[in-house]
């Protein structure tokens, strides 16, 4: 079930270094939210803080509040593993598990958590997830082949299938198309449109046209200066943002006058 995310006054640190400062926003359920901004402005860091993935890096911590449907993610009693089970993630580089076949890759989220599945149910999950990721027709005859044997765009869709196979509430995507060709990118953008009806999607992208094409809301992140923490400059519906930005920096960035 898709859920909304409320972020209020979030600061993110790596050790003593403040990477992101004072982010407040509401990410609507069953919509696509895009983050744009120059490199190093903290978009990815912020995205990773939404499912506590940034904690994988030693010394990373946050101050502030992130709530998903009223439940605070950073409550001391919250298990980060459980959070990540609910909030899935797709990475910049396709990363299927090299030891597993296509079939096993899709089921990885279930199998790695030792959930016992009857064969029929497993088959159903695999087919549903692969269909959901628009990959079924391409791989249905070679499900037992290694996942690494697919092309880059197919691998990325396999990763999306793997992420939706555990039926998360939210899907985070960290530049999912930056390593792909335009055709694979188009396939994934179509997929994002379709997934929107079931999931809350948050996507980081360097491609402003992509943000304009796929997203309902857009957040623009920027740095005040090198070495300063990144911050959220503007957060608005995508249409408004790209036609009539309220902030001068946003307009400069979108129209290509800097960055």
């Amino acid at each position: 079930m898709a859920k909304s995310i409320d972020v209020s006054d979030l600061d993110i640190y790596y050790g003593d270094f403040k990477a992101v400062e004072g982010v407040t926003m509401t990410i609507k359920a069953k919509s696509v939210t895009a983050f744009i901004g120059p490199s190093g402005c903290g978009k990815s860091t912020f995205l990773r803080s939404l499912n506590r993935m940034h904690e994988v890096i030693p010394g990373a911590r946050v101050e502030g509040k992130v709530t998903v449907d009223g439940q605070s993610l950073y409550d001391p009693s919250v298990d980060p593993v459980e959070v990540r089970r609910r909030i899935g993630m797709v990475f910049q580089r396709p990363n299927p598990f090299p030891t597993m076949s296509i079939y096993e890759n899709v089921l990885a989220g279930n199998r790695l958590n030792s959930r016992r599945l009857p064969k029929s149910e497993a088959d159903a999950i695999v087919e549903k997830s692969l269909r959901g990721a628009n990959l079924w027709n391409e791989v249905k005859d070679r499900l037992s082949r290694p996942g690494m044997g697919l092309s880059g765009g197919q691998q990325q869709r396999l990763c999306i299938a793997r992420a939706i196979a555990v039926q998360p509430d939210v899907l985070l995507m960290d530049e999912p198309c930056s390593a792909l060709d335009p055709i694979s990118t188009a396939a994934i953008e179509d997929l994002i449109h379709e997934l929107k009806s079931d999931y809350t999607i948050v996507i980081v992208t360097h491609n402003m046209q992509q943000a304009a094409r796929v997203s309902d809301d857009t957040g623009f992140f920027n740095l005040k200066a090198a070495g300063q923490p990144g911050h959220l400059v503007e957060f608005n519906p995508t249409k408004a943002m790209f036609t009539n930005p309220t902030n001068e920096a946003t307009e400069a960035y979108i129209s290509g006058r800097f960055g």
Partner: protein
Amino acid sequence: MTTLAVSPLARPRLPRWAPAVVAVGAIAVAGLLALLLGWGPVATLIVAGVLYVVVLPAWSRLLEGSRAAADRLMTNLVWGSFVVVCVPLLWLIIMVVRKGAPEITGHFLSTSMRNVVGPMPGGILHALEGTVVVTLAATLIAVPLGLMTAIYLIEYGRGSRLARVITFLVDVMTGIPSIVAGLFALALLVLFFGPAFRAGIGGAIALALLMTPTVVRSAEEMLRLVPNDLREASYALGVAKWRTIVRVVMPTALGGIVTGVVLAISRVIGETAPLLVTAGYNDSMNGNLFSGRMTTLPVFIYNQYKTPGAVPLGAHATDPPGYARAWGAALVLIVIVMILNLIARIIGKIFAPKTGR
């Protein structure tokens, strides 16, 4: 307009058959010298090799220029070193096979040395048994220890002070002389069981001490090679850290880890000194790790050479009977190590992550 001196794109090249001509020439010259000066075949071959390595680059320099000459010289040197390294290896194998092969019989492999005196036919079964039991026990101790250390170093302790200390200690352990490991194991057992205690377990402890750092090192390298992307992918699916390590990281690195373990085994299987002091020597079968002396193949070889028995009167043989047994056991040991290496390669192949299209 000034014209720059442009070197032509095409330069004269040595003909394809040049190396062959130089090789034949080098052998001819060396052979002639050998005839005149009465050298043996080894000296002749060495002179021919040196001539070839020097003459071909010299010719190349005259015709092709200095860069091509340097290329040919380095190529010759690299190949030359390769040949030089291979000679002792081949020699050793030929020697051991020639001397050991006649000794390998069903009887030799299926009996012990119990009640064998002088030239009576004896066997190595007790030493084979000892080698297998002691090495297996050492592996059972060293592999979990080494693997878990490596997992701690890579997955949990990265960059921490404790991890640095452990890495340093592992490096120190790598350099421990095997006899010192043996004495340590002996001292440990004597502490518990009294001064006369000799048993296979002591040897296993000593060998485990020698194996552990090798296992840690190789497993560490292999775990380090597993891309972080895979760990993150697993975390993002809501998989706990230890499950990620067991189900994603380890399988990805398994081929390399197993190869490292098998290579560590084949390294310690030939140890003599630590087993001599801890497990002692015994002519009879003993499969009990915890009581009684136990012989392993290297110790058997050492003992047969040390006390080979007398040459029987009136026999044609000039070597005492123990020498032949030692060679036979040496051949068996080498074959075991080779089989282990083959197994390591096969396992590495089987478990290597599949990229296949």
